[in-house]
């Protein structure tokens, strides 16, 4: 190793060609600018709405901003009268409470079902049930929410049962959450080392103890991801619950929908919409913090984005779910 690379090459073709210094990648800057414009398109409407919620009492409901600033409309979410006129506050409070309980229930059920289903899948399906599972889960993902609500309504009518938010909308929302939760769990299992279970077994733990002390602690962040998927999807759902509505305050999105249609739209609608959006974004923040903590504790190198974004991968369940079959044909 006497550094022969620095000697003059014996043959002309071995000459080292020095390329000019790397030029600035203009396409990167162009695309970056486009990305910023795109973000404006994505977030702009919501931001406009947030700004308009800060209108004064006599403010208009369309952009651009007219009149003075004021927190009247935000206050109207909390108090039953603002400046002498009645508000939707009591309805909103009931709706928020209903939505919160409903979403927590949906999140818990999604986490439970996604976990048990993925456990069954992990044990390898006998017969051809893996194909059936694939189709049913794709079906849950692809069925338009409103269509599912219609079907549920007809089915329950036939059975002679009465529908309600808790009995039917919860069911439809969990169906919508299951594919996402299932794919989160699959990405967790894909990175899971089954040898630790074998080690626990070899050291004398029985199956239940292995499950309780080895398996669960290793995958609980995945369960947390499933819960959050079920929670946010239900928290924001409209299509799947509108048919089962008995009163406006059944859930927060239904309340928002009601405020939109009844005419006489006021900026308190914008304040409410902004508040629920901020709440959703806070929930994502919690998810990201947990994910990054998991990343830090694990300490393993991440090779691909899709590996670490187990949760985000599931958004596009199709990419994980059916990207593979076409590539097999090529």
């Amino acid at each position, binding site marked *: 190793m006497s550094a022969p690379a620095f000697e003059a090459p014996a043959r002309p073709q071995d000459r080292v060609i020095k390329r000019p210094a790397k030029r600035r990648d203009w396409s990167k800057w162009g695309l970056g600018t486009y990305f910023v414009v795109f973000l404006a398109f994505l977030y702009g409407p919501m931001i406009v709405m947030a700004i308009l919620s800060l209108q004064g009492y006599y403010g208009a409901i369309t952009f651009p901003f007219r009149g003075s600033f004021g927190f009247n409309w935000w206050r109207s979410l909390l108090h039953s009268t603002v400046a002498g006129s009645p508000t939707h506050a009591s309805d909103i409070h009931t709706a928020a409470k209903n939505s919160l309980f409903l979403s927590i229930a949906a999140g818990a059920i999604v986490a439970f079902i996604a976990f048990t289903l993925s456990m069954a899948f992990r044990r390898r399906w006998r017969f051809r049930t893996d194909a059936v599972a694939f189709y*049913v889960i794709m079906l849950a993902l692809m069925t338009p929410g409103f269509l599912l609500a219609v079907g549920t309504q007809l089915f329950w009518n036939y059975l002679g049962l009465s529908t309600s938010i808790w009995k039917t909308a919860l069911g439809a929302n969990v169906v919508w959450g299951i594919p996402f939760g299932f794919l989160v769990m699959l990405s967790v299992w894909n990175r899971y080392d089954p040898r630790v279970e074998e080690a626990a077994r070899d050291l004398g733990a029985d199956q239940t103890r292995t499950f309780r002390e080895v398996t669960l602690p290793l995958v609980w962040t995945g369960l947390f991801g499933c819960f959050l998927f079920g929670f946010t999807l239900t928290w924001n759902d409209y299509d799947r619950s509108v048919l089962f509505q008995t009163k406006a305050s059944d859930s927060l999105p239904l309340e928002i929908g009601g405020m939109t249609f009844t005419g006489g739209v006021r900026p308190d609608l914008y304040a409410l919409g902004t508040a629920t959006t901020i709440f959703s974004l806070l929930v994502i923040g919690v998810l990201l913090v947990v994910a990054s903590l998991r990343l830090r504790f694990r300490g393993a190198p991440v090779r691909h984005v899709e590996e670490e974004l187990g949760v985000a991968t599931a958004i596009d369940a199709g990419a994980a779910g059916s990207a593979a079959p076409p590539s097999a044909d090529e």
Partner: protein
Amino acid sequence: MSSSSGPESQLNAAGLEQIEEIDQTAPRLRALGTATGPRERGGGWVTALWALPGTLWLVFYLVLPLVFIVLVSFWTYKLGAKSGFTTNWTLENYGTIVHSSTYWHNMLTSVYTSLIAVAACLILGFPIAYFLALKVHTLRNQIALFVIALAPFWTSFLVRSVAWTYPLSDVLGWFGVTTPSTTSVRLAMIQLYILFMITPLFFTLSQVDRTAMEAARDLGGNWWQMFREVIVPQILPGVVIGSIFIFVLTMGEYGTVLVVGQNYVQSVGTIVNSYITSAVQYPQGAAAAVLLVLALIAGVFAITRFSNLREDL
């Protein structure tokens, strides 16, 4: 760099064929991720027990309702019946729907809207996915930007629809778009659903073979040729999946049309709803819904023709 290209260059055609053969063994298994771990004792019963809660829930809340849409669409409307229909088989509901010009008009409008949404999401979304996957180099930045672009997915579609109604009506007016109108509904749909196109594009783009892209450029191809010959074939599955998502979601859309369109704009979803809630004509509503499902299946089938996706997808 040079050390890794050594073995790859030795891959010959036979080796590639072998890889393809291995890939074809269990595509669905791979599609759902690989089943890890040894086959455990206890057999099928334990597995079935694990699968039981999810299966029951999916059958009761997904499969049976869908089956009942089809069944009810063949049953007879009866005014006094408690459920709104009796189990007498008839084709009358389909006759009514097929002869309803309103239904066909809205069906065609919906199809047209969906096609526009798919095309717009593809054209507007590709540069974003390309930027994220190939121009952002550190993983941390990639994740951060991706999450920023994706975060609105977790917020309410309804609230984001509301933002397209009154708040933006003046702004849209500057561009000659009135609200509510079909155009504003379409704009809102593109904004709401474009994430479903960007995500599969991003994941397929970040898996595109970089060495093949470099090779294409080194062999004298310009960017466009590289794009056409190297990138497009490799991201086609992502394009197809994104298109299926957007098509299905926008065709079956209900809330957005209702909020942004405000009764001036109709879609198949609002028509079905008017049969179900206003007229309480359950069998006719079910027939309309079945035709919507058939249109969805036809659309998905047509989209998969663009790629050599498996026919049984």
